[in-house]
């Protein structure tokens, strides 16, 4: 009798007692009963101690474990000493700093709160008015200026004769304000 469907169920059950259906099937199926017995044998094989287990030098293994633990403890001890030394140095530094005169404490100055922004009120634009001028007034003012600052007499520029009778150098001097003339 071949019962592939039961194989999985038998293999999944941890003993026939766990699965009543499996137990009932095993009671009437010789093939599955053999399969279950073989599984039990396999489990027994797995539980058996391998021959090498008797040949191992367990003492050497324990020594190796112990020496690694001791080494690790030493490293941890050195690290602890270093950490302690570092903390002492740090503590001394902190003590030095704490003995130093304290810097003046900066006090916060309370500034007046800025006023809320208000839209400035601009004065009304002045209306430009052009004064009424007459052309006569301008002329009168010009005459007044001329009378007050009379123009100096025009001096003819000096002439410098050269060896060539056709060429004469005229020395012209210009002062500021004369450019308009």
């Amino acid at each position, binding site marked *: 009798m071949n019962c592939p469907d039961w*194989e*999985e169920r038998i*293999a*999944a059950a*941890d003993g026939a007692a766990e699965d009543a259906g499996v137990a009932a099937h095993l009671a009437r199926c010789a093939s599955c009963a053999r*399969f279950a017995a*073989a*599984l039990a044998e*396999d*489990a027994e*094989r*797995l*539980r*058996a*101690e*391998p*021959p*090498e*287990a008797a040949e*191992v030098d*367990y003492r050497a*293994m*324990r020594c*190796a*474990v*112990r020496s*690694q*633990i*001791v080494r690790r403890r030493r490293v941890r001890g050195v690290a602890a000493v270093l950490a302690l030394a570092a903390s002492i140095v740090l503590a001394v530094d902190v003590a030095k700093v704490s003995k130093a005169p304290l810097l003046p404490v900066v006090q916060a100055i309370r500034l007046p709160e800025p006023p809320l922004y208000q839209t400035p009120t601009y004065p009304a634009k002045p209306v430009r008015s052009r004064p009424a001028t007459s052309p006569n007034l301008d002329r009168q003012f010009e005459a007044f200026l001329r009378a007050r600052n009379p123009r100096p007499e025009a001096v003819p520029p000096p002439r410098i004769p050269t060896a060539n009778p056709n060429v004469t150098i005229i020395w012209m001097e210009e002062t500021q304000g004369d450019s308009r003339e």
Partner: protein
Amino acid sequence: MGQPAAGETSESGLLRLARRGDLDALEQLIVRHERRIFALALRMTGRAADAQDAAQETFLRLHRRIREIETERSLGPWLSAVAVNACRDIGRQRRRSRLVPMPAGAAELPGLEADPERLAAARESEAWLRAGLATLPEKERAALLLREREGLTTAEVARALGSSEVTVRSQICNARIKLRRFFGKREELG
């Protein structure tokens, strides 16, 4: 670091002393479990050298994490779970899983060149068992060994392997069937 007191030779007493840093107590705990852990590691890795490394690593982890073990009852399953994971770590470290491919030819059925008569019966059976285990995927092998060999409950196996109980049940079932088929072939040939 003295010897454990006469009343404290129980596992819980040794654990207590070991937690306080007593190396002798720790060593006594190791003595109690070393053989079982080595055998488990050998079943997992298939090689004695790897099994020794895994067992050593297991006991180093015991020292490092001894405070995690709550009671003496949990020490055995705890060590088994740690050993299986140490085996898996060793396999990963070596860049190839020794747990799947066995030494050449070991996972195959023996041919004519292998002469079973020249091997002791126990050794032969062991070689077959190892070859059969080598055909299993790593997690299935680990689940099967923790369940069948170490007697852990499904929940404990699931915790050890970081899987769900449903997955572990399925893994154990598959592993049992595969191993049975492997031995079935052997029996047919033998």
